[in-house]
């Protein structure tokens, strides 16, 4: 789960990281009030959970509260990469002299956290990693000891930060690391961390990605989820504990297990089709969960055919069949369903499905080929 910039910076500020004064606004009039309170030049920033908002015109400077209001109105009417802007952050405008990158994330290959810094801040750090990898400095953190002062000092020296700022840099590094630990984040980054004209270090922008598996430990953070930014189908899926990702193709997929779900999508693509979604019903799915999953797929207007691939193990094939039947009875699908149902209790599952009109096959390859053929036929008609 991603946090917005204003949420991320608030989290950092709780851990002693200096951030600009400012507040979030969801209308032009609110933005004017914030700008008046600040009493100086402000920056109005779109709050959306995608990158590239600067290029899209979603970050603008305003000299007066009136101008801040006008810009807020304009930005709040925008869509950035298809996501409507619902909130803006109005911050005091800060003039940076230097822009630095500072981030902490999980290093999967080392099974440890890693703190990353670069003197090339304010740009996409992944681009820097690509073009100038030597400009990125990483330091591996012991999972039990946490970030040590000497490590932050090493980073400060390695990015050639002037010594006058080391003390602040170390304090901010520790604050950022604490924020990452306390929130069970998988990523916490300040980009840019700036040296201002007044000789202060300050976090101008922030990004936090939380570990979905750890949200049960942080109900306060879980409440920050911006459901307006989710695809409605993905929101419904989450409610039922289904793992769903909307894609652009025409073949709806319902599968048990993430690996098999991905492999099913891959085989569809290999046969010349395009999957409409990723949907993993998980292990030991109940009939209700299967019904909910199939409903989500059937309500996607792009779907021309549905492929159901279930290899029962912990999941029972008859239980899956009991979930498929009510979804069909309610939604009365106009698109064909291709079902491949094998494994635990497969005979009973097949028997239940025999009554419903669907195409049953015995292998994944057959199922994929048939789905692709049917989707193409659907296109012609």
């Amino acid at each position, binding site marked *: 789960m991603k946090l917005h910039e204003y949420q991320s910076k608030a989290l950092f500020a709780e851990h002693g990281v200096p951030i600009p004064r400012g507040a979030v606004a969801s209308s032009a009039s609110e933005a004017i009030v914030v700008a008046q309170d600040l009493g100086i030049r402000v920056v109005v920033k779109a709050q959306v959970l995608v990158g590239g908002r600067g290029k899209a015109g979603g970050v603008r400077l305003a000299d007066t509260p009136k101008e801040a209001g006008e810009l807020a109105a304009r930005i709040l009417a925008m869509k950035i990469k298809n996501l409507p802007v619902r909130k803006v952050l109005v911050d005091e405008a800060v003039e940076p002299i230097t822009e630095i990158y500072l981030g902490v994330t999980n290093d999967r290959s080392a099974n440890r956290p890693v703190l990353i810094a670069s003197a090339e801040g304010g740009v996409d750090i992944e681009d820097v990693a690509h073009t100038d990898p030597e400009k990125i400095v990483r330091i591996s953190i012991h999972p039990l000891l946490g970030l040590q002062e000497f490590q932050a000092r090493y980073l400060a020296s390695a990015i050639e930060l002037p010594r006058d700022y080391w003390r602040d840099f170390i304090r901010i590094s520790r604050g950022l690391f604490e924020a990452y630990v306390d929130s069970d984040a998988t990523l916490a980054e300040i980009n840019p961390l700036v040296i201002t004209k007044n000789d202060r270090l300050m976090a101008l922008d922030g990004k936090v990605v939380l570990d979905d*598996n750890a949200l049960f430990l942080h109900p306060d953070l879980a409440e920050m989820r911006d459901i307006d930014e989710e695809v409605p189908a993905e929101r419904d899926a989450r409610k039922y504990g289904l793992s769903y990702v909307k894609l652009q193709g025409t073949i709806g997929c319902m599968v048990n297990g993430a*690996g098999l779900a*991905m492999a099913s999508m891959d085989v569809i693509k290999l046969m010349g089709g395009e999957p409409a979604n990723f949907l993993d019903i998980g292990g030991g799915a109940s009939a209700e969960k299967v019904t909910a999953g199939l409903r989500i797929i059937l309500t996607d207007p792009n779907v021309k055919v549905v492929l159901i691939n279930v290899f029962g*193990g912990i999941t029972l094939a008859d239980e899956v069949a009991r979930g498929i039947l009510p979804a069909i009875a309610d939604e009365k699908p106009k698109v064909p369903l291709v079902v491949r149902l094998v*494994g635990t209790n497969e005979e009973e599952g097949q028997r239940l499905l025999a009554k419903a009109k669907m195409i049953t096959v015995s292998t994944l390859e057959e199922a994929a080929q048939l789905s692709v053929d049917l989707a193409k036929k659907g296109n012609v008609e």
Partner: protein
Amino acid sequence: MSIFIDKSTRLVVQGITGREGFFHSAQMLEYGTNIVAGVTPGKGGEWVLEGKVPVFDTVKLAVETTGANCSVIFVPAKFAADAILEAADAEVPLIVCITEGIPVQRMMKVQHFVRQRDVTLIGPNCPGLLTPGISKVGIIPGTIAKSGNVGIVSRSGTLTYEVLYALKLKGKGVSTCVGIGGDPVNGTDFVDVLGMFEDDPQTEIVVLIGEIGGSDEERAAEFIGDHMTKPVVGFIAGITAPPGKRMGHAGAIVEGGTGLASDKITALRKAGVRVADWPGQIAELIASK
């Protein structure tokens, strides 16, 4: 021969009285696994599974009383990290954690603790181990595999069943099937298991099933190129997965230009691995060998 588990495996099931723990304990018993104990805090002294298995309050007590040398964990995600630590502290040499959804920062600490002891952790978020005809520890359906010379190591659950089933249809049997799990931090990785298969006399060919996310497959490719004499057949799931989206497993996500299926396939092919284009093709490649 097999790896990890055999006839001498004496299993303790942590979370034996829970819904999943109970169901799969019955399945494992039926398969022939020697379950010597169960652990559920607060239920010590009871006997379950038709009075065949004693329940203990702690892993330490279960090990002292029954000589258990392997643990399988079915407890819910909230308590699973604690369960792994408890088993490691009781010095159970092999710990298999089936539970999905353990917070990753917690898991980094647990993994560090486990690696400092003389114990092996498999998982979490994995289907466990199967040595066909001998023993199973976990949830892999026993009926879809027969004994043979193919070693399997996989990050996925049901995709592994798909491959086991396809192998069985082609008349090919398995030495041991190892599910290492779909989480970003796990106890045992591809390289650990590949080394064991290389040394296992029963295993003549190895199947590696990977997926998007991380760089475990790339390291496996390097190991295969440098150290393996036995042939390896592979499959990587997620060639169609879009970047930035988590595909079910916590570990299955393409981030910052790394973890791509295409990079993994290229690395494996460079190391001489024959990589299948679809899961069923793995069985064909092995049968044609």
